[in-house]
C-alpha cells in the first residue's frame, strides 16, 4: 500500500480546534464530525459548452463526486459543508444530469449538508438538492466563501464593507504551492483565516506567493495536498493591511445561526 492510501492528512490547529488537512483537499474536523470542501465548480464543462467556449471533456462532475464520495465513505461525517462555488453557475446546478443529482442525494442521506453560497452560485444549492443553503455560518470559527469578505460576527446590519474578522474557514482563492517545477493544491493557514484549496476537478490554483495570501495569512504556513510534508511559510504581510486582532479565546459558543 502506498503512503497516499494510508496517510490521512496533515494535522493542524486553528481557532482552538484540531483539524486534519486531508490530502484530497478536504478539511476534516473530528470533534464536530464535519467534512468541509470548497469550490467544487460542478458543471464547468457544461457552462463552457453552453456559452460557445471550448468543448471540455464532460466528466468533471463524476470525477469530483468520485473523490468526494471516497472522503465521505472514509470519514462518515455528520455534516458536509460546501464552502461556496459548488456549482460553476446557478444554471449549471439546474442543468445537472439526473444521475449526478441522485448521487449527491445518496451521499447526503443520513447527514446534514450545508451549502454556503459563493460568487459563482449565489442561489446554491438550487431546487432538488439535499441540505440547506446559507450565506455564512458563525461558530467557534466562521464558515464563509471568501475570507475577509462579508460581515463579521460582531458587525451588525449596515456595518458596511469592513473586513470581516476571523477566525474563519473559507475557499474562493484556490491556493496552490509551486515548488521544484511542480504545483500542489494547498491549505493556507494563518492565525485568523484558514483557506481551503479548490476541491473541484476543473479548477486552477492561485500561487501562495500572491499578495492576497500575505494579507490574509501572512506569517502562517501553506500545507500542500501531498502525502509528503510539503509545507512552506507564508511571508508576513504589511501591518497596515494586516491589522488583524488577536485570536479570540477558543470554546466560544455558537451564534444564533450556528449548525
Amino acid at each position: 500500500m502506498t503512503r497516499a492510501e494510508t496517510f490521512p492528512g496533515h494535522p493542524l490547529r486553528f481557532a482552538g480546534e484540531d483539524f486534519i488537512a486531508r490530502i484530497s483537499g478536504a478539511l476534516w474536523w473530528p470533534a464536530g464530525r464535519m467534512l468541509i470542501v470548497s469550490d467544487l465548480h460542478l458543471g464547468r464543462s457544461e457552462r463552457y459548452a453552453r456559452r460557445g467556449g471550448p468543448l471540455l471533456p464532460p466528466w468533471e462532475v463524476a470525477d469530483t463526486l468520485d473523490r468526494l464520495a471516497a472522503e465521505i465513505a472514509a470519514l462518515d461525517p455528520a455534516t458536509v459543508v460546501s464552502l461556496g462555488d459548488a456549482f460553476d453557475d446557478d444554471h449549471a446546478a439546474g442543468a445537472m444530469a439526473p444521475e449526478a443529482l441522485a448521487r449527491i442525494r445518496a451521499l447526503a442521506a443520513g447527514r446534514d449538508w450545508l451549502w454556503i453560497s459563493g460568487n459563482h452560485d449565489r442561489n446554491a444549492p438550487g431546487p432538488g438538492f439535499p441540505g440547506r443553503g446559507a450565506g455564512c455560518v458563525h461558530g467557534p470559527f466562521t464558515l464563509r466563501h471568501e475570507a475577509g469578505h462579508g460581515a463579521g460576527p460582531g458587525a451588525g446590519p449596515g456595518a458596511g464593507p469592513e473586513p470581516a474578522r476571523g477566525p474563519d474557514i473559507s475557499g474562493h482563492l484556490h491556493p496552490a504551492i509551486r515548488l521544484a517545477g511542480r504545483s500542489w493544491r494547498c491549505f493556507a493557514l494563518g492565525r485568523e483565516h484558514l483557506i481551503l484549496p479548490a476541491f473541484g476537478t476543473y479548477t486552477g490554483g492561485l500561487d501562495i506567493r500572491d499578495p492576497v495570501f500575505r494579507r490574509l495569512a501572512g506569517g502562517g504556513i501553506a500545507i500542500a495536498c501531498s502525502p509528503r510534508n510539503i509545507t512552506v511559510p507564508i511571508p508576513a504581510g504589511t501591518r497596515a493591511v494586516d491589522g488583524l486582532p488577536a485570536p479570540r479565546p477558543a470554546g466560544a459558543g455558537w451564534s444564533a445561526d450556528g449548525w
Partner: protein
Amino acid sequence: MTGLPPLFADWFAGHGWQPHPHQLALLGAAQDTLLIAPTGGGKTLAGFLPSLVELHLTGARGMHTLYVSPLKALTADVARNLARPIEQMGLAIRLGDRTGDTPESQRRRQRADPPEILLTTPESLALMLSWPEAPRLFSGLRRVVLDELHALAESKRGDQLMLGLARLRHLAPGLAATGLSATVEDPQALARFMGGAAVIEADPGPAPDIALLPTSRPPPWSGGGGRHAVPDVLDAVAGARTTIIFLNTRAQAELFFQAIWAANDDNLPIGLHHGALSREARLRVEAAMAAGALRAVVATSSLDLGIDWGDVDLVIQVGAPRNIKRLVQRIGRANHRYNAPSRARIVAANRFEVIECVAALEAVRAGDLDGEPRGPGPLDVLIQHILLTACAGPFDADRLYAEVRSAGPYAALSRADFDACMDFAATGGYALRAYDRWQRLVLRDGCWQLRDPRSARDLRMNIGTITESEKLKVRRRGRGGATLGEIEESFAASLTPGDSFLLGGQVLRYDRLRELVVEVTPAPGREPRIAVYSGLKFATSTELSQRMLAIIADPNRHRDLPADIRAWLELQAEVSALPRPGTLLCETFPRADRWHLVIYGFAGRNAHQTLGLLVTRQMENAGLAPLGFLATDHALLVTSLGRVGDAASLLSAPTLEQGLDDWLAASSLMKRSFRAVATIAGLIQRNRPGARKTGRQATFSSDIIHDTLRRHDPDHILLRATREETRRGLVDFDRISEMLLRNPHIELRQLDRVSPLAAPLLLEMGRVRLGGSGHERLAEKMAQDLMAAAGLDRLTNDKG
C-alpha cells in the same frame, strides 16, 4: 512558356548576368515543381520569374501569385528584392505583404483589391482561407511559391500549409505550385509532401572549404559554450569580411557573446541575434548586418533561414552541429555568391564534440546528409483546418475528405480518422453523448456549419501550430522602460528578486514580476545565473552518431583526431573498453557514496532522456534507489544508491516497451505534448501575448483535462494524437528500439572508479530531476530548507 521575353533578357544582360539554368528550367516547367538549390543560387528570383513573365505577357490584374515563407522578416526581405526588377523593368505589378504585422488598414485594402503578388506566412494564409470571401479572393490565383520548404516541412506549420495549398488548389483549379528548398537528403520525399512535383536540382556549386578551427587551447572536458576558442574565433573574424557565428542554443549564444566582447580588444563591431531578443533588437542587428556595419554576428537558428547577407564570407559553428544537413545549410550562409566556395570553420565545445565534429566534416565531404522520415500528417492540425474551413462557410464532408487527401502529408489519411476529427470538431468527440450542448458544428442540408457563427472569431484567434511555452516580456524597470526581450515563464518562475541572468549580452538583475512583465535592472559586472531560456534541444542525428561510433571503435582511425583525444580514447580502452558497433557498452562504478551506471547508447539526447526515465523506473522497482540521471547525445548516466549488476535485464526491449506505455500514460512529457495538441485542436485557448490574465485561479491546467480524459475516455482522438506525437518527437523511442537492434550484445564493465569516457558526464551540470517520489522528496527537502531558513521548521509540529 519557355523563352525569356526580350524585356527580361535585356534586364539580365543589363546587369551583366546570365540566367541560371535552373531559373530557365523553372520558367519552362508546365507543372508543380520543387527546386532544390544551395543558398545564393538565385532561388527566390527563380521562383518568381514565371509569375513576372506571365504577368508581363498577360497584363492580368488581381491576385496572381501567393508567396509563403516561414518568416515574417523573409517576406519583407523578398518584397525589397523583388521590387528592384519590377521597378527596373517597369512592370505593372503590385506587391503586398500580409503577415501578423500588417496594419489593419492595409489588410482591408488587400481584401478589397488584392495586389498581383501577395507575400504571406502559413498562419496568415490559414486566416485568409477562413474568411467567407476566400473563394472570391483566390479564384484567380495562378501560382503559389513556397519558400524554405525544407524548413516548413520539419514542423506542423508545413502540414498546415499543405492543407492550405490543397484548399487553394480547390478554389483555383489549374494553380501551379513551386517549392523552393535548400539541399535535402531526399528531394522526392519533399516533392511528395507538396502533393507531387517535378524535382529540379540546381548545380550545387563548388565544394565548401570546411575544417575544424585550430584553437590555441584544447577544448574542455564538458560543457557546450566553446569559450576556450574565443581568441581564435576573434582572430578568424578579424581575418574575414563578415562572419556569422552559430551556436546551438540561445543561452550559449548569450554566454559566447559576452565572452567574445570581454576579449574584443580591437572593438570589432559584433552583434547578437536570437529568438528571445525583442523584435526591435533583432531588426537593428539585421539592418546593421545588411549595411555592412557589423564584422560578425553571434546567432542561433534564428539566422538559419532567409535573409540574404551578401557579404558573409565566413561561418563559424561553435559546438557540434548535431545534424549534418543543418551544418550544410549553415555553411551555405557564407558566400552567397554562386560558384564561390563557402568557407566554414567548426569549433568543438568539448572533447566528445571533437569526435562528433570530425565525423560531421567527414559526412559533409561525402555529401551524406541525414534526416528522419516524416510521420503522417498530425490530426490536431487537421482538426484546426476543419474548424477554419467551417469559418469560411458550410462544407460537404466527403468533398473535404477528398481535398485533404490531396495534401501530401494526409495522402494516406483513413476515412475513420477523418471522421474522428470531424466528430471532435463538431461535438468534442467524447464517448459520453448525453449532452446536446456539446455541439459546435451542425449538419444542415447535407453541409456542416458553425452552430453559432460568432464562434468563428474565437477559432480564428486560435490559428497556428506554434505552441511554444509561454513567454514573458522582460522590461527595464522604471517609467517607459525599454523591452529587452522575452524569457520562458518557467525560467521566470525560478527567479527570485536579486537573481541575475543574461539577455541581449547584458547581465540583468531580476526585480519583480508585474502584470506578466519581468522587470529588471541592468547589473553590469555581476555573475549571471546560467540562462536556461533555451531554444530547441536538437539531438545528434542517427547518421552522425553512427559515424562517431565508427571512429571511436577503430583505433586506426584515431589518427584523424587531435593528440589529447587520442590519449583519452587510449586510456579508455585500457581501463574499460571502447564503445563499438554491435555492442552496447555499459559501465558501473562507485563515486561519492553513490553508484553510477553509464550506457553508451549513441542514440541522441532525446532517446537517452527517455531511456533514463525508463531505466530509473525499473531501478526504482528493483530497490536500487535511483537518484537522477543525465542524458547527453552520446551516453546516459544514472546515479543510484544501489549497484546495477545486470544491465541486460534493464535493457530488454519488451520490458522497455511495456515501461514506455506505462510511463507515457502518466508522464509530464505526455502532458506537455497534450497541451500542444489540445491547443492546436482548439480545446484549450492559446495564451495570447499581451492579454492580461485576470484571476489566475479561473484557468486550470491542461494536465487536468488530460488526466480526466485518460480516466474516462482513454481512446479519445486527442489522446491518440498525443501518444503518436510523443512517441515520435521528444521521446524518440524508435531510436531506443533501433539502438537495441543494432547492438544485440550488451557488455557491462564493473569498474572500481570512474572511466575516462564517463568523467566528462559527471562534470555536466543540471542533472535531470526525477518525477514521482524523487520529485516529491526533493520538494519536501526544499520546503524543509525554506522553513528552516525562516525559523519555522518546528512550527508545523507545534500545535498552537
